[in-house]
């Protein structure tokens, strides 16, 4: 299963991911309806400023996800195959247990209702909207092994260049 990964050194804080997320999750799949649509479309990932840099915070769809395991009504469930955690708006009672236990703070709420809101990894798309929108390839969608390889190759190239310039 490919997952969303963040390459920590690349984000420039342009917030394209947030816009694309809100767009994909609006009824008309369009930002224009953002002002008029009910419920108002909301983003499910957040670009945060910390320690002088910016980082997109996006649901990790954790193994044995805390948000799903504390959900009292069964609104938040994790697919055993894909590990994707989704919530059923009909069942959610807004007790916010999920928000309290999420280690990344990426469980939000809808604009109008007391209903939890989080990344559903864009079930209608091959590549999640935030990943496709990212101009700098900070967000990537790939298998965990491939992501590690990407970082490994990057690190190897850096090492090689440092080594070469020293030699």
């Amino acid at each position: 299963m490919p997952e969303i990964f963040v390459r920590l050194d690349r984000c420039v804080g342009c917030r394209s991911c947030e816009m694309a997320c809100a767009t994909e999750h609006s009824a008309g799949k369009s930002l224009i309806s953002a002002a008029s649509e009910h419920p108002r479309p909301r983003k499910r990932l957040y670009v945060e400023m910390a320690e002088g840099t910016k980082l997109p915070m996006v649901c990790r769809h954790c193994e044995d996800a805390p948000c799903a395991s504390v959900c009292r009504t069964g609104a938040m469930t994790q697919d055993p195959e894909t590990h994707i955690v989704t919530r059923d708006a009909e069942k959610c009672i807004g007790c916010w247990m999920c928000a309290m236990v999420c280690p990344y703070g990426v469980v939000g709420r809808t604009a109008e209702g007391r209903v939890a809101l989080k990344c559903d990894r864009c079930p209608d798309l091959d590549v999640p909207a935030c990943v496709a929108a990212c101009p700098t390839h900070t967000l990537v969608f790939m298998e965990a092994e491939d992501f590690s390889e990407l970082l490994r190759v990057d690190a190897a190239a850096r090492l090689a260049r440092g080594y070469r310039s020293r030699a």
Partner: protein
Amino acid sequence: MVATICPYCACGCGFYLEVERGQARRIIPRSDHPVNQGALCPKGWASLEMIHHPERLKWPLRRTADGWERLSWQQALQILADNLRRIGDTRGPDALGFLSSTKCTNEENYLIQKLARTMGCANVDSCARLCHASTVVGLRRSMGSCSVTNPLSDLANSRCILVIGSNFAENHPILARWVLQAKEAGATLIVADPRRTPTAWLADQHLPLRPGTDVALLNGMVRHILDQGLHDRDFVQRRTTGLEQLRSSLADFSLARAERITGVSAGELARAARAYASSPASAVVYGMGVTQHASGTAGVEAVANLALLCGQLGRPGTGILPMRGQNNVQGACDMGAMTEFYPGYRLPEDPRTVQVFGAAWGSTCLPARKGLTSMEMMDAALFGTLKAMYIVGEDPICSHPDQSRTRQALQSLDFLAVQDIFMTETAEMADLVLPAACWAEKEGTFTSAERRVQRIYRATDPPGEAREDLWIVSNLARTLGLNFPYTDASSVFQEICRRVTIYKGLVDLGDFGGFWPCLEPGKWNEILHQDCFPTEGGLARFLPATYCPSTQEPGADYPLLLTTGRKVCHFNSGSITRRTPSLLAISDHLVVEMNPEDAAVLEIVEGDRVWVKTVQGSASGYAHVSGSIPAGVVFMPFHFPATNRLTGDARDPISHIPELKAWACQVKKEV
């Protein structure tokens, strides 16, 4: 689904508009587009919100004593024509001023300058004056052509990228894609900017120079390269002239002096100079941090000197990339919407120019001289010699420096007509307001910063009775009795291909457009200056760039230095983005960025309402205290009207670009 090009910056990203029941409902980025590959920045994502915005202008309006009166198009065009005719006849055509729009298509710019010039008026200009006039003048003087030399995506092939006065990560986020690709392949990224901007976060080396000292920084680097013999002797000998003049002009420009002026250590400057000069392919990206100075032309020439000296031109991964701000600012300049040039950069002083266009347009009264720049039009209006202005898609009240002076200038006109999509601050002052169609409502071509000429298609109908600028200008010209036999954008583009040599072969633009210069269909050079420069003799010239200290040294009354720039979620004068809900949700007020040290002295904390004062005026905003800005410097984005109340009227003597990046100011907490 309708293919279109983003209406914001000059990257020229492609996306589709999905249209449902006459409404543009959704944006689908084009993953096959060579510039953006399916990515967009937040402004691009939010561009839908301008199309069906409730505040769009819907009908022609005339100012009366009781407010705005709705007119029919026939009445409005008659009033406009009568006033232009009356003032042109009694005062002479030089009493008229035309501002064309870099948001409009090539075709519309071509017609607006044709309208002005066939009326005998040389005063036609555009907002290119405010962003890259110094580039147009400076690069033409040194290498004969004034555009980006290499495609944006070619930055990925670069091994060293020097960025001066451009915060592309916020302002042209798509560029970051290509720069990061180069970095991944081992390129060095050097960013010279007073602030530690998001672009500087990505850099291997950040040179935090003092605002207004770009020329000194570049001169110091050039001198070091000459001293160390790091320059490309072969290139300099074969392709350039004037090295000795350059060398002697830098006699007193040691690294130590550059360090004193810029505040960047000599060691850092030397390291940057060595990295740029010795890499196999280096590119310079620069923005308004270099151009918007009273010495803007010198800044551009200093950039050109550096690239020429190191032979970093004409190959993949090299080049000079002035980052243009508006989607069609390149096209507007190509089409002659600058008073120095007829279409295709033909000089008005050249007798052949007037002959050729006179014959083409059937006009005997074309002006054979340069007229007033947009800055000079404001002077002339104040002086009483300019009596009427027709402003298309520009908001000088917000974008020109010294707002109170601009306001006075526009007030002293006999007649002001403004054509725009929203009631901008400038339109509020007009006698006549004409509602224009926005980019999604018309056909035509845009020329992006990389010289890529791309088509846009009509996706929706304009609101109310708003009309395409092309329709308005053609009908106005016909009301004036001029010969404007154009039916649609393609008939104008055909004429452009015939009259503008660099566009000659661009008859079939295909999916992703074509690059100029293009003399034969399908044949163009994406990389300029491969074998020779488009100058007489084919050589580029070194032009000594003189460092002039800013007149705005902070002193006792105004101890801080104000610099202006952009934020990622807003655009230029903000007349569109300040009306876009999803961008306002991210950033809705004017911030005044300042260093924690300065803030502590003034007892200002994050979020305080503060007043910023300069000799010109004062403005209030909300403090953002941040270590990313050096002590002694204050930053304000110019997307809010208040910012240009603070800037004054100093300009580059050659290109007339205003100084917008270094003004002495004081900041006070609101009590």
